[in-house]
């Protein structure tokens, strides 16, 4: 299309900020996550706690012990189900997902999550490598790729909704002072790896003769934030219909491989928890996949000889690296690539490129909830001396929020497996595969060097 035949129309109508607040999953994860955090705080200051509600299976040795636990606490598990069903149910219903279908499906996810959670508390679980995130993922994959997920069970399998809610809750257990201290290093390390990984994928894809828009979509998936990165950049550059599915297929396959490989290699090398978390945060592709890997490694701390650092450090380092270091920059990537695509790449007959507002519109809003939760809990607990904090704040406030977070993550990990039907994914083709794989190799090696050598002292200290 000739450039002089189409004039710029008036600015497109975008959903207003008020519509966005209820039409996007990100905002609903904030409402739910912060709602739970502030309810926990309110009960804490009234002398009570949400600890009763935030029930989790306790360690057990033999099956009768576990059955006794369930018989004694069934009312708590039922109440917790009702709470999650109401909160997520309001969210999905507002988004337009049929509520009845969601509830039936979510009940299935919840019941299986209880069993996965309980299995992880078995005293022989680590001997058999039955880490809950890996079990959840493997079980979901098995169901999805053998019998298939029944249609009635599909509506409640919302990977991103669960992981975003869990990350907002995670903010409440991550001191804001730690974010301020570690954030700049995370951003620096992530920026180095993101730029090099994107450049590698884009360069190799171009050398293989692939379309620039596909190259950019692949690059964003490997360098920025996985499926979300690919879909955001596909829209920003006006990619062909088949480009995003190709990139998504490669992101998913490599992300699942890395869920198993990164923790196992880290374990073989006895990396400290903070260091392993930083590496996973640098070299995993999606938040959900990375948290599965990081939480698996958290489970090794204190149970596997040679692994030092606190269990929380793996998840904290991962979150700093992935969420603060990589996710929040997707709008900037979209803006820059949109301008390059419309000014330098081949004509497509479609006009218009993004403005500066793109940065905010594509900003992963759930990060705001994560930061608000962190600031709120840090401010609230600031006045406690350490002994009182450990004796009162942790068991009555922090631990129950951590338990709720673990539930949300478990729903997510099981859902990843349930939604990953290999036969339904788009066929990627050899050239996109090799371009993306080149980026994976560079990303993993560079992320390892930065995490275990260049910034090793920093990430080790995070876990002390």
């Amino acid at each position, binding site marked *: 299309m000739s450039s002089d035949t*189409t004039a710029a129309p008036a600015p497109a109508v975008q959903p207003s900020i008020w519509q966005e607040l209820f039409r996007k999953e990100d905002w609903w994860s904030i409402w739910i996550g912060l709602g739970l955090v502030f309810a926990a705080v309110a009960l804490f200051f009234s002398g009570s706690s949400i600890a009763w509600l935030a029930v989790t299976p306790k360690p057990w040795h033999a099956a009768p012990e576990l059955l006794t636990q369930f018989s004694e606490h069934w009312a708590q598990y039922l109440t917790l189900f009702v709470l999650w069903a109401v909160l997520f149910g309001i969210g999905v219903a507002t988004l337009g997902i049929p509520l009845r279908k969601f509830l039936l499906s979510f009940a299935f996810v919840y019941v299986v999550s209880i069993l996965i959670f309980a299995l992880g508390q078995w005293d022989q679980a680590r001997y058999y490598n039955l880490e809950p995130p890996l079990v959840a993922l493997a079980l979901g994959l098995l169901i999805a790729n053998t019998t298939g997920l029944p249609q009635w069970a599909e509506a409640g399998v919302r990977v991103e909704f669960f992981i975003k809610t869990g990350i907002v809750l995670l903010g409440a257990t991550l001191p804001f002072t730690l974010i301020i201290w570690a954030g700049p290093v995370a951003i620096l390390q992530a920026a180095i790896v993101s730029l090099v990984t994107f450049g590698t994928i884009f360069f190799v894809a171009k050398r293989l003769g692939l379309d620039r828009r596909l190259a950019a979509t692949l690059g964003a998936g490997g360098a920025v934030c996985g499926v979300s990165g690919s879909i955001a950049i596909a829209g920003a550059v006006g990619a062909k219909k088949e480009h995003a599915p190709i990139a998504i297929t490669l992101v*998913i396959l490599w992300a699942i491989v890395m869920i198993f490989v990164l923790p196992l290699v880290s374990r073989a090398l006895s990396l400290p928890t903070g260091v392993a978390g930083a590496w996973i945060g640098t070299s995993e592709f999606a938040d959900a996949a990375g948290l599965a890997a990081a939480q698996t490694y958290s489970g090794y701390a204190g149970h596997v000889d040679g692994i030092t650092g606190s269990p929380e450090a793996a998840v904290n380092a991962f979150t700093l690296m992935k969420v603060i270091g990589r996710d929040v920059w997707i709008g900037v990537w979209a803006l820059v690539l949109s301008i390059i695509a419309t000014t330098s790449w081949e004509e497509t007959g479609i006009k218009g490129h993004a403005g500066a507002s793109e940065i905010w519109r594509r900003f992963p809003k759930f990060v705001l909830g994560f930061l608000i939760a962190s600031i709120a809990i840090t401010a609230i607990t600031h006045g406690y001396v350490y002994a009182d904090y450990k004796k009162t704040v942790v068991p009555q406030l922090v631990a129950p929020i951590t338990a709720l977070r673990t539930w949300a993550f478990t729903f997510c990990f099981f859902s990843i497996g349930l939604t990953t039907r290999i036969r339904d994914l788009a066929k990627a083709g050899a050239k996109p595969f090799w371009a993306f794989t080149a980026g994976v190799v560079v990303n993993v090696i560079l992320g390892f060097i930065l995490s275990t050598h260049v910034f090793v002292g920093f990430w080790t200290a995070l876990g002390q």
Partner: protein
Amino acid sequence: MSASASTSVKTERHCAACRHFDNAPESLEAAIPGLRVMGSGYSSVRNADGLCAMHQRYLSAASYCEQYAIR
């Protein structure tokens, strides 16, 4: 090229209002294999992008072209 460099008017509407354009989250999750696995049609990063049946591309809702057709 930038939109502002154009000289004559044939199109006055964006993809957001075009009948060739579909950006409903549920449609996109059905049309884009794997989007739900580690992503979502309802996420903020997707903004209001959607699929154009005319150009067979995944586009920003703010894009525009000569083939605009009112819904």
